[in-house]
């Protein structure tokens, strides 16, 4: 499988988009740490980048890459290679390049300026979100018939996870504000990897004290070992389930 991924990687590196992405992340995070006097403030600004920009770039890049390598996939299909292996190689290639872009672009400045629990939580969340949104993008592009639909679906999904979902949660919380909702919101957060990542990082920061009773409950939960495993497990599910679904669809697809 690694043999195929090598060619995928080679193809990605030639296009230089990933290099630009790395540079962008590096410049942004480096300058944030330089501008803000307080490192945890810089982390908070970086959090926005990680939660909004990283998923967006991961999705768009993956979708475009998938359609651009359609010829490659076609060629591989006439060779003695299984479809699962072809798709997983594509995934590995994209994941490897985007993850290294993230860890070089944000990881190095964070390790340099804010090497603590919050920083590590940020890196973990960013890495996990990259993988999650690559999986979702693969699913969207395998299901969509053409490039325009694929990219459209990817954008819509990103919109949903980054913006619309929060609105829906707020709506639910307002509507049922008379009831105890703490456990329920915990469940809701698991249904959106971006939210889960946000809560996970926020609770590592001092500002979580401002979040009242719910914050205290969250702190209790996410601060403990179970909370870390919970986040890890949910993120893993978010990575594997869309990918498995994508493989299932891809195996039955006519090409």
């Amino acid at each position, binding site marked *: 499988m690694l043999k195929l991924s090598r*060619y995928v990687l080679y193809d990605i590196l030639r296009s230089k988009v990933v290099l630009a992405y790395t540079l962008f992340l590096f410049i942004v995070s480096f300058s944030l740490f330089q501008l803000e006097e307080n490192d945890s403030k810089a982390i908070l600004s970086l959090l926005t980048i990680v939660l909004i920009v990283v998923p967006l770039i991961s999705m768009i890049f993956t979708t475009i890459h998938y359609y651009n390598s*359609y010829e490659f996939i076609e060629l591989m299909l006439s060779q*003695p*290679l299984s479809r699962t292996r072809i798709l997983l190689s594509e995934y590995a290639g994209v994941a490897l390049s985007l993850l290294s872009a993230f860890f070089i672009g944000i990881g190095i400045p964070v390790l340099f300026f804010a090497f603590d629990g919050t920083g590590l939580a940020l890196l973990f969340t960013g890495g996990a979100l990259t993988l999650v949104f690559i999986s979702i993008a693969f699913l969207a592009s395998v299901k969509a018939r053409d490039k325009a639909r694929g990219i459209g679906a990817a954008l819509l999904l990103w919109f949903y996870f980054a913006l619309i979902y929060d609105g829906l949660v707020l709506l639910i919380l307002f509507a049922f504000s008379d009831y105890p909702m703490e456990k329920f919101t915990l469940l809701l957060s698991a249904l959106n990897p971006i939210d889960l990542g946000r809560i996970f990082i926020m609770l590592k920061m001092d500002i979580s004290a401002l979040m009242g009773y719910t914050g205290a409950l969250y702190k209790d939960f996410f601060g403990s070992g179970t909370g870390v495993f919970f986040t890890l497990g949910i993120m893993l599910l978010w990575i594997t389930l869309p990918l498995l679904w994508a493989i299932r669809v891809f195996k039955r697809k*006519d*090409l």
Partner: protein
Amino acid sequence: MIRIENLKKKFKKLQALDDINAFFNQGQVISLIGPNGSGKTTLIKCILGMVRADSGSIHVNGKQINGDPSYRSQIGYMPQIGRYPDNMKVGQLFRMLKNIRKMPETELDTDLLVKFNLVSIFDKPMRTLSGGTRQKVSAALAFYFNPAILILDEPTAGLDPLSSEILKEKIMQEKQKNKLILITSHILSDLDELTTDVMYLQEGKMIFYKELSVLKKETNEEKLGKAIASIMKGGKREALWIDEVLALKETVKTN
């Protein structure tokens, strides 16, 4: 070598393949002919596993093709429109496939590489190649691994007369080696010299599958085109297509 049983495939409303039954054996050169959209390419793609049939089965060398892709190492495929990764260089393409198929250098068939003089363009990216040159690359790739089964989809379309002759020569040579060769083409005169059997498809149905000599004897015709024309004229209106082909030939001649 290839056994096809009750193969059916529907694309939305279009019945692309309707209950195809056939047995292809080694030493045969089978011409798949029929009008555009009659299901020739779909049949080929079914054999290659690129299109999933709705029902029916295909056996290659006694094993049903179902998931396990290893049977494709026996097949050399030349697609109708060769699409390759744009950034990849010609030499890289050959190296990559060699790497994937894991065949020792001595067993490779570089005959067409030499005759088409492809080595001289090894460092050109695929996107800069003309349609005809791409076709040459496709042909050279199909024969490269010395496969027992060759599937050629419109092999001579887009090739200049000289290259076309070289390719036909090569097909003849492979025929002598007792291989199974499947060809689709609209240029019936090209097929005349090569073919041993003829399979005629129309609107997804197999109209007939006969030895060429039998076909010629039955119709008392010397040429493949005319033989098919006369058999189709046996009270069937499906002969329209072949009438058009012959009419076109006549006009070309008179001009």
